[in-house]
């Protein structure tokens, strides 16, 4: 699938918006206005590239906590992110029950995930199984970190998807770290794609800073899955530019030089260069995007700050489906 110039610019815009929202979250945390943030900075290209290969709103997604850019592509609103950061009632993923960035968005076919890493993988496989049973042509995307591929949860889900040839695409966002533990301590192979090969499904490793390369890899995988040719695992290599979360201090386990070195491959930079090279992204266009993003982020923060918290007693439900309130 060749992307139109307009779509390519839009993809850059999604990355930029995600980055500015994410940066604002860090600022809010430093200001003491929010309790927690877990960041997707450095991972936007892989997420946007994957999202744009899906039929968004039609296909299904089982994401993980770094997927802000992916969520934005699926229609998650900046103000919804800010509501979630502040634990406000209107927050659509959980009504303030879950920590921020623990996504769920029914209207976009995004299923709810927990903090227990890799548990979403078998849900994706189950969704794939149901799609196949119903003879539909949807696909499901599951994403996770590279460290999480050490979990038996991941192995069982991928194995099952391969055995049953299900329309599942596993995106491994290899940001080189699981909190402080480097990827070499997670796997004895160069890439999670190699882990997949032993399970009998296609494993693809792709440069996760190049949104268009990721998109290309996903487009192929989605096409195969949609036409009944089974699952693919795509590992997108990238670097986690921020600490693991707002509770982490990454100076305790990696050098500033290492981080600075990797910032040269910051996906915003890499893709800006690509689009500039192709004559699509001009200085004025970029300026326009930046001011639009700033305005959206400001408005989102303002909205969320004024939004009400849930009432304490709302914590009592809905434990069971019968208690779900539709107000």
């Amino acid at each position, binding site marked *: 699938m060749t992307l139109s110039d307009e779509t390519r610019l839009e993809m850059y815009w999604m990355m930029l918006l995600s980055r500015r929202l994410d940066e604002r979250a860090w600022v809010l945390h430093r200001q003491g206005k929010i309790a927690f943030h877990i960041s997707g900075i450095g991972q936007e290209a892989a997420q946007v590239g994957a999202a744009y290969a899906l039929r968004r709103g039609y296909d299904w997604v089982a994401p993980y906590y770094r997927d802000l850019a992916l969520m934005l592509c699926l229609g998650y609103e900046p103000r919804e992110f800010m509501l979630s950061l502040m634990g406000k009632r209107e927050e659509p993923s959980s009504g303030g029950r879950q920590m921020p960035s623990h996504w*769920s968005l029914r209207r976009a076919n995004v299923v709810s995930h927990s903090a*227990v890493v890799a548990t979403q993988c078998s849900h994706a496989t189950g969704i794939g199984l149901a799609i196949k*049973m119903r003879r539909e042509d949807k696909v499901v995307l599951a994403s996770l970190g590279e460290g999480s591929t050490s979990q038996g949860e991941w192995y069982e889900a991928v194995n099952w998807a391969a055995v049953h040839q299900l329309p599942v695409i596993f995106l491994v966002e290899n940001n080189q770290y699981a909190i402080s533990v480097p990827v070499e301590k997670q796997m004895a192979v160069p890439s999670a794609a190699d882990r997949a090969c032993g399970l009998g499904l296609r494993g693809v490793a792709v440069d996760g800073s190049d949104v268009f390369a990721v998109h290309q890899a996903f487009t192929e995988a989605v096409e195969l899955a949609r036409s009944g040719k089974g699952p693919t695992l795509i590992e997108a290599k990238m670097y986690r530019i921020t600490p693991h979360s707002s509770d982490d201090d990454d100076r305790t386990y990696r050098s500033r030089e290492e981080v600075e070195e990797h910032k040269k491959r910051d996906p915003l930079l890499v893709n800006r260069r690509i689009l500039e090279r192709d004559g699509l992204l001009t200085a004025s266009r970029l300026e326009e995007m930046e001011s639009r993003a700033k305005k959206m982020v400001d408005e989102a923060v303002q909205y969320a700050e004024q939004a009400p918290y849930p009432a304490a007693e709302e914590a009592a439900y*809905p434990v069971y489906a019968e208690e779900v309130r539709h107000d």
Partner: protein
Amino acid sequence: MTEITLVEAIRQAMDEELARDERVFIVGEDVGKRGGVFRATVGLFEKYGEERVIDSPLAELSIVGVGIGAALYGMRPICEIQFADFIYPAFNQIVSEAAKMCYRSNGEWTVPMVIRAPYGGGIGGGLYHSQSVEAFFAHVPGLKVVIPSNPYDAKGLLKSAVRDPNPVIFLEPKKGYRLIRGEVPQDEEILVPIGPARVSRQGSDLSLFAYGMMHYYALQAAQKAAEEGIDVEVVDLRTLYPVDRETILTSVRKTGKALIVHEDNLSGGYGAEVAATIAEGAFTDLDAPVRRLCGPDVPAVPFSHPMQEWFMPNPQKILQAIRELAAF
């Protein structure tokens, strides 16, 4: 009416639900061609095909996890765990995922699924084919925990479980699969509601609380006690979670004495919840301390026959406990 076995009642329930609702499917180890190691799914593979009676990989966490995914998508999975002893690999999916899905998504996502597992000892199964696991799950809001004691309830409760919009842990007393027989009408639909316990025998001297295989024994012991002039009321708890406190308290307020029987280990077992319920809600009605007759606090049921019998409560042990409590 026709008399059928417990396992046949379970098979019929699944057969009827598969026929009624095309979203229903079965997934587990050996459930297909083999018809389940206990033959609970026998004939269903032939009748409904391999897409609706799925032989899964040998992988419990994904049997449940895949079930959850399918349920999120709108299906109605019945997941079979071959023995309750092997449910622990799936504990993560049951407790962290299925149980919390509705709450954590503020009701946007629910998990209508049944997890069936044969449980319990007395069948020469040793440590890893005899365990009772109900206490782990009866501690988890978001789950429903059901244990039938007879074919009628097994069929009616399982059919209700399949239709329930929540995850239901359905534990089947495997020793009773062929031993426990009962009348089950074959020409009408049976649905037994999940939630209420049932007074299975009226009595005035003491209340005996049990479920599953132990309820079967409890009725036998109560019968013997009646011959000795002790009038025992037996309550089949059958839905362990959420707890039906009202039925428990109503019975104890009437009899003033409570005996709780389960084969699961004593400490931290389900009986502790029943005892606490009574202590909080019927303290002044009690004429004797609450008594528990349970499996001892050893890791699990040993294999060798004498040791197994030492572990398991049985009608004689229950009768003895009834006598002691009645005499208090």
